[in-house]
């Protein structure tokens, strides 16, 4: 396939996803509410835990750092969050996967780009919220960010989205073997978000767990970008961390291709 034809195909998937998202305007409001409420709950919790002592540190965070982590972490979580897995599962389960298999288009590319299109508006909204959150943090808690941190943050966010997409793609492909996996998505989402540091920093689990989690893909989906923006990652650790993330992207890409080929063989064998 020529590059022009391919970019045309997936560009169209993207634009259709984008247009379809506009059909559900009220959804945006809920998305914002869904992002704000955990931040409020967690901040209240941290206020209680830190008490009145302004110099107290918990798990290596001062109160100001913890609030910054909570706000930014939650918004990063929302930015990289998937949602295509239900459609993937439905396509496998109800057999609607058929309609893509007979067309000269790659299913992975189709889902990826229509999902990106679908997510665009929501993501812009989240990015605005993030900017507002950062400005508020700068004004109230003396939080400071550097332009270099912003650039690294944006790059790490792209890696985070890729990793998260691949993780949930693999989870979704389990639908080829298991009939009912709707429950699995929410369960695995909670586990992945927790291990990614999306609820609280992973230093909460202790130093040993932190060392192990540093090598797994999860932390790169939330904690790593968040801490980059907060300027909490020592500069000599940044490049190796990106290296580990890149390795995981390669591994998960290979795994998803393997699962897809196996699953498709099964799909073609079982029928629906």
């Amino acid at each position: 396939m020529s590059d022009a034809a391919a970019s045309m195909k997936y560009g169209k998937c993207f634009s259709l996803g984008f247009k379809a998202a506009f059909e559900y305007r009220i959804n945006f409001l809920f998305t914002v509410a869904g992002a704000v409420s955990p931040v409020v709950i967690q901040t209240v919790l941290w206020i209680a835990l830190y008490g009145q002592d302004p110099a107290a540190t918990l798990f290596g965070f001062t109160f100001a750092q913890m609030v910054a982590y909570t706000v930014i972490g939650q918004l990063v979580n929302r930015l990289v969050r998937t949602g295509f897995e239900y459609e993937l599962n439905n396509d496998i389960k109800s057999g609607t996967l058929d309609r893509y298999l007979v067309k000269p288009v790659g299913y992975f590319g189709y889902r990826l780009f229509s999902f990106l299109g679908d997510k665009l508006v929501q993501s812009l909204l989240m990015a605005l919220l993030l900017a507002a959150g950062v400005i508020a943090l700068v004004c109230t808690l003396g939080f400071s960010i550097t332009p270099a941190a912003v650039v690294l943050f944006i790059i790490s966010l792209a890696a985070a989205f890729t990793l998260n997409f691949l993780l949930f793609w693999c989870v979704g492909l389990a639908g080829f073997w298991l009939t009912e996996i709707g429950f699995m998505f929410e369960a695995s989402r909670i586990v992945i978000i927790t291990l990614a540091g999306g609820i609280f920093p992973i230093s909460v689990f202790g130093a040993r767990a932190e060392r192990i989690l540093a090598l797994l893909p999860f932390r790169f989906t939330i904690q790593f970008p968040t801490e980059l923006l907060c300027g909490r990652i020592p500069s000599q650790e940044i490049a190796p961390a990106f290296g580990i993330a890149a390795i995981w992207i390669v591994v998960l890409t290979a795994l998803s291709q393997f699962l897809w080929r196996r699953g498709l063989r099964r799909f073609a064998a079982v029928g629906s």
Partner: protein
Amino acid sequence: MSIIQLDNLCRNFTYYEKQAGLRGSFKNLFARKMITKEAVKNISFAIDEGKTVGFLGPNGAGKTTTLKMLSGIMHPTSGSAKVLGFTPWQRKKDFRMQIAIVMGQRSQLWSDLPALESFDLNRAIYEIDKVQYKNTLDELVALFGIEQQLPVQVRRLSLGERMKMEIVASLLHRPKVLFLDEPTIGLDIISQQAIRDLLKRLNSKFGTTVMLTSHYLSDIEDLCERIILINHGSVVYDGALSGVNETLAGRKTVRLILSEQPDVRRLSAYDGFREIEGSCARFEIDRAGVRAFSLRALEELPVIDLTIEDAPLEEGIARLYRGEADE
């Protein structure tokens, strides 16, 4: 030249037997009995380019399974098939560029968007040249009379309108082979008629080879000169539509108009009695027995009028489904 060719195509499904009740479920945890079902058994036939062929059979006969194998969605258990010179289930890009399948019960359109958006996506997917796309679309829109519905969200369309859109979407790349699985299912008579007219004009205009399954015999009668009838996974009839009744040794329908409504029991004494509606009784009689039957009926019943005609197609098809064909 054959554009579709099947040789001894077979497809088995295996699944586990599930016993009813709690006890059955518990037992299943430990010992499951594997069942093999032969959905398609040694099917062979060939279809020439540009022909419209009806593919018939009762529910579960293996029609959809066969279409899925021919469109490349499913692998066969054994046997071979060639469509446009390709082995479908290898799913080569060149193959996928030249075929289309429409399943009446499955939509390929984005329900939240107007159909035009899905058409545009197909234009990109099938790499259709802009000018050619516009010409084809204009032609199809005029043919199908759907201009008004183009900007409407697909989920707000009626079933008949949506089906027209589905067919348009699958024709934009001018496929050489089109598989239609129940394109008129659930449609009212007017919409069925409209879809049929379109398919007829399509065939004469585009020369598309069409394989069509339907439970509505009027679809088949209108569109197909040839039918392939399968039952229990095997071909039970392959030939001209008009030949269906001949293979059944020429059954005839005899209708009697009676001056008084007779007792059903009295009519049931005659072989071949089917039904009575008001004063009109209907019988299905072997050709050889028509004379004897008529003489007896005229003698014994208060007959005002008597007509003899070929048995309806449904009767012949139903008998083929039941496996009563005289081979």
